């Protein structure tokens, strides 16, 4: 079974949908098209939406859409409070984070909710190295907290992402977009960091989810490793019950 570690709940009219419909039903349709059972889902920054929009979608599709909370860390304690509420009252199971608020990460660690961080950058820029060092610091400080590095550093920082993932058992690599754009990068991650560290992500609807799935399949990782990437690691990280 395929699980996705990052997808977006969009509203129709979102410019980045380039004319396609948005909404929970459409996201589920895209999951169906790609053979995805369920996905961690958050709101898109381009929409006038909030976590409540995701909560409504979760209620409509409880076995398909799992809530990932997105809050503005600059709101300080109010952001932390909202995050806690989405977990304890609405059943959210993840936090999308930008590595700039220790208070939010601490709350995630307290609640036992995995954190997802967007990673990319160009390896030749000094600030890129600083960014990955911050992720490493976070992983070290909260060793029981699973942290998924979405996009695996993209093409220009994948080595940095793999390097820190190898150092910390609680750091994972999300295949979001590279699985469709350059699948061989996912194979590199599996070979160098281990299949148990790589988690499938689609980035639907902003990327073509079926190509991401097909990209992983074409790697011929072997049944056991492919199962880990597509679902096994996700189920372990998000503590899904069979």
């Amino acid at each position, binding site marked *: 079974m395929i699980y996705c570690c990052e997808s977006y709940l969009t509203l*129709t*009219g979102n*410019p*980045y*949908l*380039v*004319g*396609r*419909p948005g909404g929970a039903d459409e996201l589920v349709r895209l999951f169906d098209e790609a053979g995805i059972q369920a996905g961690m889902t958050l709101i898109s920054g381009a929409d006038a939406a909030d976590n409540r929009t995701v909560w409504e979608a979760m209620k409509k599709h409880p076995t398909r859409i799992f809530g990932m909370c997105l809050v503005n860390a600059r709101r300080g304690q109010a952001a932390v409070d909202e995050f806690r509420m989405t977990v304890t009252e609405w059943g959210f199971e993840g936090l999308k984070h930008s590595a700039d608020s220790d208070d939010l990460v601490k709350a995630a660690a307290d609640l036992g909710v995995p954190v997802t961080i967007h990673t*990319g950058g*160009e390896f*030749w*820029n000094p600030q890129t190295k600083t960014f990955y060092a911050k992720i490493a610091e976070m992983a070290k400080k909260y060793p029981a907290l699973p942290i998924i590095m979405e996009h695996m550093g*993209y*093409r*220009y920082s994948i080595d940095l992402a793999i390097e820190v993932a190898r150092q910390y058992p609680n750091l994972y690599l999300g295949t979001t*977009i590279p699985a*469709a*754009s*350059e*699948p*061989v*990068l996912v*194979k590199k991650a599996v*070979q160098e960091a281990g299949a148990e560290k790589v988690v499938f992500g689609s*980035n639907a*609807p*902003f*990327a*073509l989810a079926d*190509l*991401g799935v*097909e*990209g992983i399949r*074409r790697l011929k990782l072997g049944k056991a490793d492919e199962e880990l990437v597509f679902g096994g690691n996700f189920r372990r990280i998000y503590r899904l019950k069979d």
Partner: protein
Amino acid sequence: MVKRRDFLKAAAAVAGSGLLGPLGSLASQSPAAGESRIDFETYLPRLFDGKPFGPEGLTALEDEAGVGRFVVFPETTSRPDNVGLARRIKSHPRMIGCASVNPTLGEEAVKELESSVRELGLKGVRLSPALHNYPLDMEIVSPVLEKARDLGVPVTVDGDTDHCRPAQFGAIASRFPELAIIMDMGFRAPVRPPGEPAGREMKEVVQKCPNLFLGLTALTTCQPAYLMSTVWAGGAERVVFGSNAPSGIPIFAVKGIEWARLGPNAEALIFRDNLKKLYKLD
């Protein structure tokens, strides 16, 4: 609900002269169905995915995608092996061999380009400002661009990092108006949907520089917003298809563009006709 067609209309309206007008006007130029595709960007590394890789592997990927001819560059190293590329593709007429040079090497790069075209028969050149670490509009690049212009070969360039932003493309395209430049839109294409302020710059540069073309590879085409925004910025006459194979999968790039349902005329331009003109192919 906003439909795809509405999006294209909106794009055209925002652009003033956008996607719909040019495509409609080219209806009579639609090529014969079944003519195969041309890929603007592939590579021929000696090792790929930890295994030996050769022309046969690349050809198999292109066959799967219905690609007839494909531009092949050598692996991007500090001194790309253009001689080795020419030797490896010699018995593969579907491959359009092109050089890759590093302008930070100065006069050596200019000589390398000249010998690659005149002696090895290569048909174009690639610049990699990201991996060779120089800003595209830096003066050291000019001698290479002058040579490409004099040789009459197209130049393909990375387009998704800090070294090669739209304004930098605009600068070199304006300085060398006779030179055809293909901007590889890469992974994080510098385009945005109509109405998004960050997307205007690319469109303005394309409008100002008729010698600038936008290249879509599998890196871009799996992301509908970047794909559609590239077509919006360039219009189908200025967009070319590619894969970035073997790292990008050609059939994925094809599927991405087909997903966009741009219509047969636009697809003919993007998949084939624009590159035929740029590389002066039969």
